[in-house]
């Protein structure tokens, strides 16, 4: 069945957000290796990936390195 994706509210903890997340109102399918996640222009690995609690005004950016040139 289709699970309604949770929206990542910037004031809420990232822990509650499953791997299916919205970014700028666009549903992003579950993260897979090859997709870079930048939080405020920094690699999310430095922030502990999903352990990081999103703060207000945080800028999250997804860059796919798959299907690249």
């Amino acid at each position, binding site marked *: 069945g289709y699970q309604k994706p949770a929206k990542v509210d910037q004031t809420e903890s990232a822990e509650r957000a499953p791997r299916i997340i919205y970014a700028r109102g666009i549903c992003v399918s579950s993260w*897979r*290796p090859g997709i*870079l996640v930048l939080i405020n222009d920094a690699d999310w690995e430095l922030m502990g990936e999903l352990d990081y609690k999103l703060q207000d005004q945080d800028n999250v950016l997804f*860059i796919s390195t798959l*299907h*690249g*040139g």
Partner: protein
Amino acid sequence: ACFREYFVHKFRAMLGKNRVIFPGEKVLLALSGGMASSAMLRQVQEGLSRETAKRLRFVPGLVYIDEGAVCGQSRVQREQTLSRMEALLQETGFPYYLASLEQALELPGSVLRRGPGGDSEPSPSYKAAVEGFIQQQRQEEASGEGGTSPSTQDGPTGDSHARLPAAARTEELQRLFDAAETLTAKEELLQMLRSHLLLHTARTQGYTKVMTGESCTRVAVKLLTNLALGRGAFLAVDTGFVDSRHGDVTVVRPMRDYMAKEIAFYNHFFGVPTVITPPLHAKRREKTSIHRLMESFLLRLQVDFPSTISTVYRTGEKLSAAPAEANSELQRCLLCLCALDIAGEEELALEPTLVKEETGNGAESRAAFIPLLCYSCRLTFKEMGPPATLPTYVRTEAQHRSCRALMKQQIQEFLLEDDEEEPGGS
């Protein structure tokens, strides 16, 4: 700031260490619009614009191949992509060529033949060439002549206003791809057509080098994928820095030391423009390809073991290309131009398993192609459509080679041998 230094330095070090690009040489940059090739373009731009002493010294041209026909793009989408790419290319001021994959259908048979030159020619020492070039430049400056810098050209040459090919051509190309039974065969077919088209562009426009933007990640994936495809013998040419299988045109991979992640960060921080297009279109019945499986495998492994990709890459670096062999066209694979790695009697044992039922068309039958292909191309060929769907240039070249082989066999007993054996029959 230090990331930028590191990134730029790596590019120059890669070129400097290998010393295959001579000053003043015409180098064609193969751009896909993707991240790695866009970063490569930026490095070339930066490298050429530095002060004289440290400046890169070759003459670049750009080529972009529109593959939208096989990537599920509509004509409108392809037009849009082409416009964006053209704007990007025009910005650089370098001469550029816009091609479409459909043009691969019209290639001449000569594209499958190794060109003259390459390893048989004694090349001047790199250092001497650089010194000679600097001297020449000083002379030109002293006598007041301008150099042939890109900015003084009359704008881009070549097919700058080529638009989409005729719909009939597009359909023909799509039929060719649809006839392939597996996504793996399609991927291989795409790569083959793309490389032939690049080679042809380079040859006709006078470029002796082609730069492709394969990143470290891509090279590692390709290494293992090609191993699984049966191309173990050719890993060095397929993934190495230098690929000289074509003889007159050498393919160079300057981005092979950059991880995909590094490239992504660089592009993001320094505003490198990219034009992303969808990948090869896969039908529902095709689950996946060896290429995608391998990419997925390596990337997932990389998450928990971050040295995976670099380990595969470094292992691949230890491979070196086999020394150049005889130039006879009968000894190279029809499709990939690598040395034929199956000889003699083994072919007969493999044939029944590789060839399906024949309609008895003589030269057009699959059996006629088999002896002309290397092991992995045979496997790919088996999964492609009937030979009649193949592009004309492949079929004519195949026929040409089959005839020559037959002819050679017929006159074999009359040929003088080097050793003292008595000729058979009389």
